[in-house]
């Protein structure tokens, strides 16, 4: 047995275009906020996950969590870099990079507001380890000079960080000789220069981290245990992908919680809006409901018809909200990552999970708003309903 025809449900929404548009519009705004926050969290995650390369391993001081907080002294760094499990370059040298990572304060372009920027000192091996990084303007810095290259986000966003400009850090002037693209990764929010120059300028005697490429066929878990159990070392070992993904956890979970709370509050308004619309629909169509029941349609047919109507209404709202939110993908956010305290740029990112969650949220609002009116419609007495012509 089929129920009330879909054409009846659909055209009733179409007939009252203005009410439908207003109600769906309210829902669209809520879905927009909901999707926007999810997209922000997804974008942050994506950026940090893409920063890592799966075969790369990051070694930092035990319980340091980030490279900024880490110090690995020269002796320990050399011990790590000498491991036989490290892949070698064509010339036979190990693909291991001892790096210095420092936070510096730079003024933003336009507003002049100071913000933390990560500056990384690395060797040519370190550059080779980052496959996703390529120079788009100018050239790479030369070892042993006070030249730096800037990630594209830094070059755009910070004063003196553009190609040919110069910045003064630690009492020394550094010339920006190149801008690099980092394929959407977190490196786009870094400045890179020569390790030895950096260590001198910042008066460092120790490195921050050692990054190396695993030799093919290496048992990562075993190597990790060997390094972490080594009495001469006080280090922890991470796969680069996991290391960066973990940096997004705090902020993305904060964003998700914030988004959920905001959306919940907003959704109450949208649900009430849908409820009023649907109650009005039931009241206006009481005689039609009575007629359908007289013709032999059951209470459950009526219940389903009005629920489907509310769900369709919310689907329209949900799709409109998502359409609006998808425009955010053209927008890049720059903010401080609380885990590293450094400026990080990332884009709103819409993925299948965001779409599904947003639509599910919209449909939930439709169901919540439509349920009571649908029950009222289904419970109408036939004779009373017919009399309401």
């Amino acid at each position: 047995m089929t129920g009330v025809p879909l054409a009846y449900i659909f055209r009733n929404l179409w007939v009252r275009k203005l009410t439908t548009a207003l109600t769906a519009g309210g829902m669209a705004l809520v879905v927009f906020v909901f999707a926007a926050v999810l997209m922000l969290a997804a974008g942050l995650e994506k950026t940090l996950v893409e920063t890592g390369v799966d075969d790369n391993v990051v070694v930092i001081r035990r319980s340091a969590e980030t490279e900024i907080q880490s110090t690995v002294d020269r002796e320990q760094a050399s011990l790590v870099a000498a491991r036989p499990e490290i892949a070698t370059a064509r010339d036979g040298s190990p693909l291991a990079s001892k790096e210095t990572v420092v936070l510096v304060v730079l003024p933003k372009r336009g507003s002049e507001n100071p913000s933390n920027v990560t500056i990384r000192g690395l060797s040519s091996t370190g550059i080779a380890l980052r496959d996703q990084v390529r120079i788009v303007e100018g050239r790479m810095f030369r070892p042993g000079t006070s030249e730096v290259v800037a990630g594209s986000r830094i070059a755009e966003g910070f004063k003196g960080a553009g190609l040919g400009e110069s910045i003064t850090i630690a009492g020394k002037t550094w010339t920006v000789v190149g801008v690099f693209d980092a394929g959407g990764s977190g490196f786009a929010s870094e400045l890179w220069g020569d390790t030895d120059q950096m260590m001198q300028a910042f008066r460092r005697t120790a490195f921050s981290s050692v990054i190396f490429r695993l030799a093919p066929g290496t048992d990562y878990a075993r190597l990790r245990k060997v390094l972490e159990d080594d009495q001469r070392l006080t280090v922890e070992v991470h796969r680069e992908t996991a290391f960066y993904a973990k940096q997004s956890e705090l902020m993305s979970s904060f964003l998700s919680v914030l988004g959920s709370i905001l959306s919940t509050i907003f959704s109450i308004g949208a649900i009430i809006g849908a409820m009023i619309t649907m109650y009005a629909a039931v009241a206006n169509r009481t005689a039609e409901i009575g007629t359908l029941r007289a013709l032999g349609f059951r209470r459950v047919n009526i219940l389903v018809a009005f629920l489907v109507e509310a769900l369709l209404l919310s689907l329209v709202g949900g799709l409109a909200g998502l359409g609006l939110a998808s425009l955010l993908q053209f927008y890049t956010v720059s903010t401080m990552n609380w885990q590293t305290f450094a400026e990080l740029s990332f884009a709103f990112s819409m993925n299948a999970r965001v779409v599904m969650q947003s639509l599910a949220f919209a449909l939930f609002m439709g169901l919540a708003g439509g349920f009571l009116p649908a029950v009222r419609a289904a419970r109408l007495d036939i004779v009373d309903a017919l009399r309401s012509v």
Partner: protein
Amino acid sequence: MAVAEPPIVEIVGLAKSYRRGDQVVPVLQDINLSMTRGEFVALMGPSGSGKSTLLNLIAGIDTPDRGRLAIEGVDITGLSEGELARWRAEHVGFIFQFYNLMPVLSAFENVELPLLLTRLDRRRRREHVQLVLELVGLADRADHYPSQLSGGQQQRVAIARALVSDPTIIVADEPTGDLDRQSAREILDLMESLNERLAKTIIMVTHDHLAAERAHVVRHLDKGVLTDRIERPRARATG
């Protein structure tokens, strides 16, 4: 003489009352009525006499307090709500005073509604709908919406809807109550021809004497009691 046919509607000792606050208001008291197949009965009476309630009971959209109400030998007072809905879909065609068409559905779709509750496939449904629309003279208006039709035409669509599932009885509540004289006459002609040519059993509530004149039997209700019975010779009587 032919052997008397078993009654298609058989009502014995039917009673119905409404509760208004603490008071129980009797609407129908001890109604006895029987109709044979192909009969056309008009129920008349002043407002509040209970004629609409009696019609609703026969149509299975209201339930009596006591009494027997059998249609084709089936006592519908014992049916559950779900069974009653299915029974209505199969056995009752409704004609309302205000046509009660779905404004968002075309004439065709309105007529098709009762068939959605049957097992007929799309093609068969289309055939049935076209047949009844031709019968009421609106085959060329199938795609029109109710707002594009006159009152008389809307009532024809409603009559087509009442006919499409070939029900046992057709109940009509003031079918001409909202129509001008000319349209009313056309609707009554249509109902009369359905009764005479298709042998449809019709029970109609009306205030209109012109309407009642078309029926074979006119029953009067007063204060919930059936009073007199007036018969009119059947037009197609063979003599």
